[in-house]
């Protein structure tokens, strides 16, 4: 059940500082720079909602059963010199041609792939499977919080504290960040302020100052405390002004919500606002009909996905040594194509981990094979890496989060972690 004590306690602590006339809870950006403290490690979690076809995204072109199962939608075998075929990675796996922007990162050994990854729960419901992947408790629906929130809550707070430790780009806080860490959902960085009035000027600073004064009263409770935090956060963001940071190194984000989200995540990272976990998602993966092969519906989605990730990588440049991008999707799709040249809900899929600390240039996980008897329930790619193993490894090795609260009831046995980190 919901447990509010931790956050209440934290708030009590923060407010005590105010009451004693101590320093403000959130110091401005310069504080981070001057302190010379190590920059926080950042995890950028990307959710491909709708179940991406892992077999088209990371193609097992060396498995003969792949081509036997997919008459129309298979991605053609690698053919050097041809832009419209699988991009070979290791002689067995290859990238969909629309993922070409990620190939340089692979070659740079900063992109690792975990294939045949997924949930131990067998549900083929998008809703349930996304729920389980975000709560981190497959099969248990009543978990109130998300695993990233639990992980962050268990990590020692950094000094100075930041209201932007966890940020989701989008209107609502996703399940994965719900919990007692005060994660912030924002539609856009520029929106995180008291908005202008009717004539787009009337509400302006006057309204913000007014609200701020109203919440500055010395009352010690949740509402006033949060109010003061809010204005500290607004001011901190104003001072850091992340929106002034144009993409660096010639990075070009794809048009659309996903590219916008990643662009702003990069801004928050570069502006040193204390971001530790960022979240973005993109849909359109539920390709039941007319999935396409090297081109088509899925290829267009993959292109946007890859261009976004590659732009983030380029934009952050050297900062990528502190950043890991982790992609996930609730399940994969059927191995055989269906009667509508699409695929139905399946089981395992492929997930990507990208960043300076990642031992890249390798496809991780045991390949279960695509012969009928090797498939899960005779139809789907079997799961050989529990998503919790991958997520645990990223959270523990990259963020230094304690493993215990991440996935209640799950113990990653030694030797079952993918081994993405040196």
């Amino acid at each position, binding site marked *: *059940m*919901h447990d*509010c004590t931790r*956050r*209440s306690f934290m708030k009590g602590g923060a407010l005590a500082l105010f009451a004693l006339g101590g320093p403000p809870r959130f110091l401005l950006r310069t504080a981070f720079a001057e302190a010379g403290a190590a920059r926080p490690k950042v995890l950028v979690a990307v959710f491909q909602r709708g179940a991406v076809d892992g077999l088209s995204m990371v193609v097992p072109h060396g498995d003969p059963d792949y081509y036997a199962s997919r008459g129309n939608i298979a991605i053609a075998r690698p053919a050097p010199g041809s832009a419209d075929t699988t991009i070979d990675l290791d002689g067995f796996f290859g990238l969909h041609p629309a993922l070409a922007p990620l190939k340089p990162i692979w070659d740079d050994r900063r992109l690792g792939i975990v294939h045949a990854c997924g949930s131990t729960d067998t549900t083929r*419901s998008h*809703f*349930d499977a996304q*729920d389980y992947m975000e*709560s981190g408790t497959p099969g248990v*629906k*009543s978990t*109130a919080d998300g695993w990233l929130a639990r992980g962050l809550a268990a990590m020692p707070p950094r000094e100075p504290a930041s*209201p932007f430790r966890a940020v989701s780009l989008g*209107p*609502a*806080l996703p399940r994965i960040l*719900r919990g*007692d860490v*005060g*994660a*912030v*959902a*924002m539609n856009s960085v520029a929106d995180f*302020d*008291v*908005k202008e*009035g*009717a004539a787009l000027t*009337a*509400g*302006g600073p*006057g*309204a913000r100052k*007014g*609200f701020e*004064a*109203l*919440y500055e*009263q010395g*009352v*010690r*409770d*949740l*509402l*006033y405390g*949060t*109010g003061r*935090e*809010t204005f500290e956060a*607004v001011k901190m963001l104003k001072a850091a002004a992340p929106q002034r940071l144009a993409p660096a190194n010639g990075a070009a984000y794809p048009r659309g919500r996903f590219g916008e989200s990643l662009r702003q995540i990069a801004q928050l990272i570069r502006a040193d606002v204390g971001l530790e976990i960022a979240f973005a998602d993109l849909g359109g993966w539920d390709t*039941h*009909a*007319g999935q*396409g092969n090297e081109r*088509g*519906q899925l290829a267009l989605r993959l292109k946007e996905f890859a261009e976004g990730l590659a732009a983030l990588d380029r934009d952050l440049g050297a900062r990528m040594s502190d950043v890991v991008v982790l992609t996930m999707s609730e399940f994969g799709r059927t191995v055989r194509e269906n009667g*509508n*040249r*699409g695929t139905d809900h399946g089981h395992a899929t492929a997930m990507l981990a990208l960043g300076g600390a990642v031992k890249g240039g390798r496809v991780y996980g045991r390949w279960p094979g695509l012969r009928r008897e090797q498939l899960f329930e005779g139809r789907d790619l079997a799961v050989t890496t529990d998503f919790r193993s991958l997520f645990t490894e990223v959270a523990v090795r990259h963020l230094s989060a304690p493993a215990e609260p991440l996935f209640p009831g799950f113990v990653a046995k030694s030797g079952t972690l993918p081994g993405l980190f040196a």
Partner: protein
Amino acid sequence: MRRGAGGVGLMLVALVGTACSSAPAPRPAPATTVAAPAPRAASSLSLPASPLTEDQQILHALNRLGYGPRPGDLERVRRMGVAAYIEQQLSPRSIADPAVEGALAGHRVLGLSTVELVREYPQPTPQARQRMAQGEMSRQDMMEMYPPERRPVVITTQMQAARITRAVVSERQLEEVLVDFWFNHFNVYAQKGAVRWMLPAYEREAIRPYVLGRFRDLVLATARHPAMLFYLDNWLSTRADFVVPGNGPNGGRRMGLNENYARELMELHTLGVDGGYTQQDVIEVARCFTGWTIDRPQQGGASLFRPQAHDRGPKRVLGQVIPAGGGPQDGERVIDILVRHPATARFIATKLARRFVSDEPPATLVERAAATFQATDGNIRAVLVTIFTSPEFWSAEAYRVKIKTPLEVVASAVRTLDGRIAPAGIGPDALTGGGVALAREVAKLGEPLYEAQPPTGYPDRAESWVNTGALLGRMNFALGLAHNRFRGARVDLGPFLGGADRSQPAQVLDRLLVVVLHDEATPRTRAVLASQLESSEITRTTAYDRVPKDTDVEKLTALVLGSPEFQRR
């Protein structure tokens, strides 16, 4: 004992003065309110002595039983007496509600059956989507085949708009609060597959009729409803060795037990997580509900009992034996066992007390409410009477201690400004008219209506909805409402401010403090707002005449609506 019109107030003033609470303490009753009581309608409810003034008691009732006062409500309840008001709210059928009927006339999905909704708001077929994806069909063709006003999203949009409209407009305020409470308790998620088309029927048939009735009826109605059967997967749950007969697409498929509904029925709907059941109880309960399924859910089919899928073996639930050879009555028997279990009485009493009294309700009150629950075989109305007539409900500690949820803050702001909601749009306007824009504001504050994903519904403690992003959202909502930026919702600050003279900012502020905050602002808030009047942006010089000052009424109203005081109820 009848409430003595504040006669005991003076004695208790001293107590209030020393009461230590994180909420602003209520102002002591001024001596004048002890004067001659107004004539009252006869009421059989006897309210206990309260340290609150008469007006504070009325505001408390309006804020807890409903979505806050509209202009005139305070006076209206003063005339009829707060006990009579509560009694009336406890019998919603006795209250005429013509305004709601008018406001919802355009929300046609509310009255349609699931079958009709599937027919009128169809999901584009995979074939159509494929043809569109492959360029064989233009966007134009697609729009003609599936015009926006016939898309499935209209169903949730109209449901959301209706919920906020009812909260604002309905005279049956307690009923609306309870629909929100019980829907959240028996939550289903609109975005899970076929649930969307079942949503109007679910609220209309399984929730609304029973919100003040017997708890058992509520559990049984939700257990049987296709929306719940689908949302928590019970429709797929069969005896362990069941194989789908026939040559259909699933013919020959092995089915089996699905425990989802059984677990949530005990953990979330009845006993509570610490209710003393075991994993074996979950399995046994799931076995009892095997065969409770849906006849073709994607076509809007009804729920039915499928004997072939039912586990006919003997079961043992919480120590009680359910003999072999049963049918649908096995599940009903489980419901009987669960609703009469003392853990259920305590769990439901706690949740109701938390909703109506405080986030951490006093144990003494929970005990009495639970006792009423058990003594009346789960009569919800009786439990509410226990709560509403308790000293804890009328205590200084409970007064204004609750922080408004997103729905509550939006509804109460529109009510307090006497805002009007336009009738729902028809045709292409189906997605924009009426309460649609206001429902979107509720979503922006973090709790989109009918879109709580987990079966827990939205959390019932303030910690989860008070955070930096959401608080900023509340301030922006206040600015948007005062500036009439939400389509379909209008506030007219002119008549609302009555005779206040716009060229006299102090007068405008005084009036706002009375009509919006009912004089419950802290001295500090008053001082801050008064100092804002000095700001040139609040009091502006008009360009058109020689009047030196014109108050920016919209901004000042927004500040009051966005103040900490207005976030409480």
